[in-house]
């Protein structure tokens, strides 16, 4: 079976897919890729099912050797990438031959980069998914010596790229009121949206700390509410009124009050914000939120149609020989990442 052998790996790399929705009643949060858009982009580039698993690399990539011919795609936080020493474009699909080495370096912007294999990473599913959920005891981080087996690849073009939505430098997060918003006074809710935040140092796949100057955002007059359900995007206020945006791997229930819920389509921006990145919140109505989310989902479905060859080329892009020529041309450019980030 073709796949990758892991020679070196960063400290926060794990196999991820769309996670395990439907197990809240048993205390298992859905988990899955921190940046679902990156998962969808990789699937679009390889023309395959977005439910397939990929390797999520937090902050730092690794070195991998192909055990057979493979299609790969690179998405999410742009990282330095090279195949046998030749630079590879990010946000693009490529071909690897048996024995070739892929090196992926540190994230240049953002946090989570993704390495996709044609056919997906076919580790053994647990509870109907391949997503690693360390806190739940489901799987573990990838370690040197591991093998990442590829599933059966239907095949297709490589040397494709797509325009990448820039979500790697913070920005605006749209937020809707949720069932505990009324615990916060209108003044606190308004001030929350007027405040400039920067991402704090405490951040992982469960949640991201937001720091600001001035007073915290305490709930009014109550500290002892019952533990209630947590959904991804909930903005929880800890005892001192400091916000944490909770992500898909957060616990299923919690007792800290939550001021509102960030739209699912803006969660990649939360997960991908580096420490110090500027972020702010904007309240939207439920109707606006639903319409923004529906628009996002429509765009996700349309992603495969937006893929195009890395460079215009008279030859057949799927032909291996001409592909390698294209790859060489890309590596000679001043910035091999420009393809994905400028659009």
């Amino acid at each position, binding site marked *: 079976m073709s796949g990758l052998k892991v020679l070196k790996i960063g400290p926060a790399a794990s196999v991820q897919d769309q996670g395990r*929705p*439907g*197990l*809240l*009643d*048993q*205390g*298992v949060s859905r988990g899955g890729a921190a940046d679902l858009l990156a998962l969808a982009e990789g699937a679009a580039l390889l023309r395959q099912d977005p439910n397939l698993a990929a390797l999520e690399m937090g902050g730092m990539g690794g070195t991998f050797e192909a055990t057979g011919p493979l299609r790969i795609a690179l998405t999410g936080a742009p990282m330095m990438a090279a195949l046998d020493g030749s630079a590879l474009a990010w946000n693009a699909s490529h071909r690897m031959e048996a024995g070739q080495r892929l090196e992926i370096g540190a994230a240049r912007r953002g946090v989570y980069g993704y390495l996709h294999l044609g056919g997906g990473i076919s580790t053994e599913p*647990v*509870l109907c998914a391949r997503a690693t959920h360390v*806190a*739940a*005891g*489901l799987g573990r981080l990838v370690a040197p010596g591991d093998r990442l087996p590829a599933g059966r690849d239907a095949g297709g073009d490589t040397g494709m790229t797509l325009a990448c939505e820039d979500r790697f430098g913070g920005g605006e997060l749209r937020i*809707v*009121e*949720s*069932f505990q918003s009324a615990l916060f006074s209108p003044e606190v809710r308004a001030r929350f949206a007027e405040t400039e935040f920067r991402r704090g140092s405490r951040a992982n796949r469960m949640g991201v700390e937001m720091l600001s100057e001035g007073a915290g955002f305490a709930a009014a007059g109550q500290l002892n*509410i*019952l*533990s*209630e*359900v947590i*959904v*991804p*995007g*909930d903005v929880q206020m800890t005892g001192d009124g400091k916000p944490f945006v909770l992500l898909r791997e957060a*616990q*299923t*229930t*919690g007792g800290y009050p939550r001021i509102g*819920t960030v*739209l*699912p389509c803006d969660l990649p921006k939360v997960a991908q914000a580096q420490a110090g990145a500027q972020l702010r919140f904007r309240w939207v109505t*439920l109707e606006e*939120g*639903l319409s923004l*989310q*529906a628009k996002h989902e429509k765009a996700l479905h349309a992603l495969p149609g937006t893929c195009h060859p890395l460079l215009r080329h008279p030859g057949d892009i799927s032909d291996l020989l001409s592909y390698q020529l294209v790859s060489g041309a890309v590596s000679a450019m001043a910035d091999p990442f420009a393809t994905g980030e400028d659009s």
Partner: protein
Amino acid sequence: MTARAVPDFPIIRTVGLSGMIVTFADGLSEPSNRATLAFRNHLEQLKWDGVLETSTSLASVYIRFDPGDVDHDRLRTQLQEQLDSRNWLQEALPLGRRFWRVPTVYGTDLAPQLAEAADAAGLSESQAIENLGAARVRVLTIGFAPGQPYLGPLGEEWDLPRQTELTPRVPRGALVLAIRQFVLFSAETPTGWRHVGQTGFMLFRPHSDRPFALQAGDELQFEPVSRSDFLKLRDRDEHMGGAMSQEIPA
């Protein structure tokens, strides 16, 4: 008919973009927890279009749905109709629940905070073991970690606050106590609750045919055994530690 304790309850609120929560009380009580379990069970049987998942917390039912299949107004109306159809605080618990008897060592080096918990409850250690070992508690909700139950309610003498300092780690199977509830831990964890008992009961086995041992509404009794008997049971039965269950008759 009993009037509702607070006229505002039950209430329906939205959760994020695609959820609703039905809350029966703002505090934990036996009737509000029973209403929660009964209402959730009822919704599961209705199998409404667009509803993707339901779950319960101590006194609320959460409904996750696809707003493309059922819009907020319609779902809210449907929920309100079901709430109005009967007094959920007087509903019986769902059928198919199980009763578990779980061998438990109280105190000793395996559960070192029994003495301080007994002291805080105004009981001797042997009284505390007798009291806790005789309590038949309900899985009020499962949450926070996979398969991890909140159990209760215990008697009022056990209304102990959480510790201000966290205990850095208690092992899997630890029975801890605070605020008239037990938690039985499904994995090693830090906690602010007091470690009064130890069991060999594995609640979450992701690779087995039955990954989750418990369902909300199940009942448990933590029957006292000696330290040496506990160790024998755990060696003989590494997954269950001697825990046995039977279906609760209607």
